[in-house]
């Protein structure tokens, strides 16, 4: 078969698939068409994330698996990069989704937004292919510009960084111009300022420095001030808007809550950055400042749980989209436990001296990223699919409801299971490697070879598989939910 025929076959298959999904894009406004493009790529990257996570987890048990072909470092990099990128895609999608509704006008500069989407997506594809097939380069600037910057979470080479900044500026233009043409609101204001901060922070991670203390100092500005400040506030915005739409909560209430959350989140999270400055060479005052402020970080997360649960409860959980509301509740608890409880447990320097850089961090990282950010995006995928199907019924007695329920169960139980397994491994490492053996190389391996560590890795693998199965079911459900449903959505009344 030649290339032309192959393309023909692929096209035909794709067409057949699109027909099978029976999704009608004419149900969506222009802004929302763009939003679902972002959601589609997000789901594909989510799949890639878990696939490479499984390979990396396998290598903990069988180190020779794919050794020399796809080494642990490559798989892990793809795992965490795919995560960061799919979540950002999700957030951009959420923003485009609510933009026209919130500003009550049509999106401004749509064609630039569309172009930006394709530029970003092609860039992401190229970066991933380079990660997989070129992997590493010589120790010089060319490598950092073209292949890989070798800095956890923000490995993307410099050319891609610059592309990302250009795309984000376009996205911004869409957001600001649309609100300016339509109308501003409290939610719109917080959203815009938060996006400015989120994008600005990325610049802090774009420079090379030989002084590793300075390098890690700025690296944490990006990582921490994203996940523990700007991303949290973005979730607050998305949540505020969804509670209005899904449950009919009054705008005044959600806006007031949003300001409270911003105050608490930024008030604790900005200086909480200090919990990463205990051991990287930075001065001792960070032990006090970082310990104190980061210990306050769970407070806004409690506030968010109260907000979501109170609003849901006061509306007797009556809503127009059961899966979305279920995932929003999962978000409230996941955020609180993953970031709040798991984060708090190792945030004081007296404890962090022993847990720093062990599976403890991985335990927290999994529950926090999943609980806080995967969940809210999944909730939005369900909102999007409902409208894409033409505002069909997705409340009680929906067809095939077992699918979304099982996907919810498998994903959550899978991640919690991995979290517990990693926690056990982390405790064991803290004791044996750090406390008893003083973190030497032989101490590291004593801890890795310990039976409780090894069995934890096996448990993590099985719970990882459960998570992966949950994702596959979730994707199947997203593609089919509401198909053939004739009842219309149960519209909620605004208070």
């Amino acid at each position, binding site marked *: 078969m030649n290339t032309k025929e192959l393309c023909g076959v692929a096209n035909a298959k794709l067409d057949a698939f699109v027909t099978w999904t029976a999704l009608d894009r004419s149900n969506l406004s222009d802004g929302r068409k763009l939003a679902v493009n972002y959601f589609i790529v997000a789901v594909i990257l989510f799949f890639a994330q878990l696939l490479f996570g499984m390979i990396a987890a396998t290598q903990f048990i069988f180190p020779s698996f794919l050794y020399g072909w796809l080494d642990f470092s490559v798989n892990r990099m793809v795992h965490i990069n795919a995560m960061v990128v799919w979540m950002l895609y999700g957030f951009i999608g959420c923003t485009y989704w609510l933009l026209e509704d919130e500003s009550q006008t049509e999106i401004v500069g749509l064609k630039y937004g569309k172009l930006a989407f394709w530029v970003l997506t092609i860039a992401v594809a190229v970066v991933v292919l380079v990660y997989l097939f070129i992997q*590493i380069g*010589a*120790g010089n600037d060319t490598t*950092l510009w073209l292949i890989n910057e*070798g800095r*956890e979470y923000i490995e993307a080479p410099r050319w891609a960084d610059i592309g990302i900044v250009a795309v984000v500026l376009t996205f911004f233009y869409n957001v600001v111009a649309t609100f300016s043409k339509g109308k501003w609101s409290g939610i719109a204001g917080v959203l815009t300022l938060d996006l400015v901060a989120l994008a600005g922070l990325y610049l802090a991670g774009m420079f090379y420095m030989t002084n*590793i203390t300075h390098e890690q100092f700025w690296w944490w500005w990006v990582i921490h001030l994203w996940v523990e400040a700007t991303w949290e506030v973005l979730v607050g915005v998305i949540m505020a808007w969804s509670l209005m739409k899904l449950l009919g909560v009054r705008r005044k209430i959600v806006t007031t809550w949003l300001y409270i959350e911003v105050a608490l989140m930024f008030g604790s999270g900005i200086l909480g950055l200090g919990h990463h400055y205990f051991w990287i060479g930075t001065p001792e005052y960070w032990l006090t400042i970082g310990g104190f402020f980061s210990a306050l970080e769970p407070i806004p997360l409690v506030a968010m749980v109260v907000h979501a649960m109170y609003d849901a409860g006061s509306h007797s959980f009556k809503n127009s989209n059961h899966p979305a509301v279920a995932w929003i509740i999962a978000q409230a608890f996941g955020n609180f436990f993953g970031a709040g409880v798991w984060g708090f447990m190792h945030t004081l320097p007296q404890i962090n001296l022993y847990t720093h850089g062990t599976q403890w961090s991985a335990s927290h990282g999994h529950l926090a990223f999943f609980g806080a950010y995967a969940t809210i995006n999944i909730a939005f995928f369900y909102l999007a699919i409902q409208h894409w199907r033409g505002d069909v019924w997705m409340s009680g007695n929906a067809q095939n409801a077992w699918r979304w329920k099982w996907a919810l169960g498998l994903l959550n139980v899978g991640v919690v299971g991995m979290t517990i397994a990693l926690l056990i491994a982390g405790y064991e490492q803290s004791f044996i490697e750090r406390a008893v053996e003083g973190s*030497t190389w032989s101490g*590291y*391996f004593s801890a890795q070879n310990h039976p409780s560590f090894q069995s934890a890795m096996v448990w993590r693998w099985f719970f990882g598989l459960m998570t992966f199965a949950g994702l596959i079911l979730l994707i199947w459900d997203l593609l089919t939910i509401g198909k053939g449903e004739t009842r219309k959505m149960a519209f909620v009344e605004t208070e």
Partner: protein
Amino acid sequence: MNEENPLWASESFWKKVAIWVTAGSFLILVVLTFDSLSQTEVGGKRVQAYSVINKKIDYVYKEDLHKFMPVIGETELLFGKEFTEEEAEKLVTLGKKTTQAKNCMNCHTLLGNGAYFAPDLTKAWLDKGWLSKELREDLMIKFLLDPENNARTFGSNRKMPNLHITPDEAKGVVAFLKWMSSIDTNGFPYNFKTIYATEE
């Protein structure tokens, strides 16, 4: 403000609080950032000059401070050569770029940050796994050039892959590791016994 809408439930009050709290915290962060960056310039007390690679570096418990601290000693040349500050900077820079280009951080931790598949590199230069201070340099270079055949794996079967590090890059990496081991990390890792502690 009225009975129905007290101050603590008012939108405009919380909006102001949010703005002031955010601006205030950020301002404090900026001030502390300037201070931290200046206290951690290369050549200061906390982060040593690159030419520290000409010296003996140790890491010992200080009774009075209740923590482990790096100790810079007499001359102890690396690769039998005395480096000027510029030469040392060049070599450490090559090493640092190599660690990024080879993606070390996605298996190892550096200063405790990174991945957990392989040991921490913060004090790798001082690790007693290198047997003795005479053998250390050669063992490290040999290992970096061909980790597959020089791996000890400590019974874990985990081997570092061959990253096609050149001999020059390997020297750079060793210099970078030596320099990094002299950074004052506020006592992390705790209880670490160096190659010198075991020799005595």
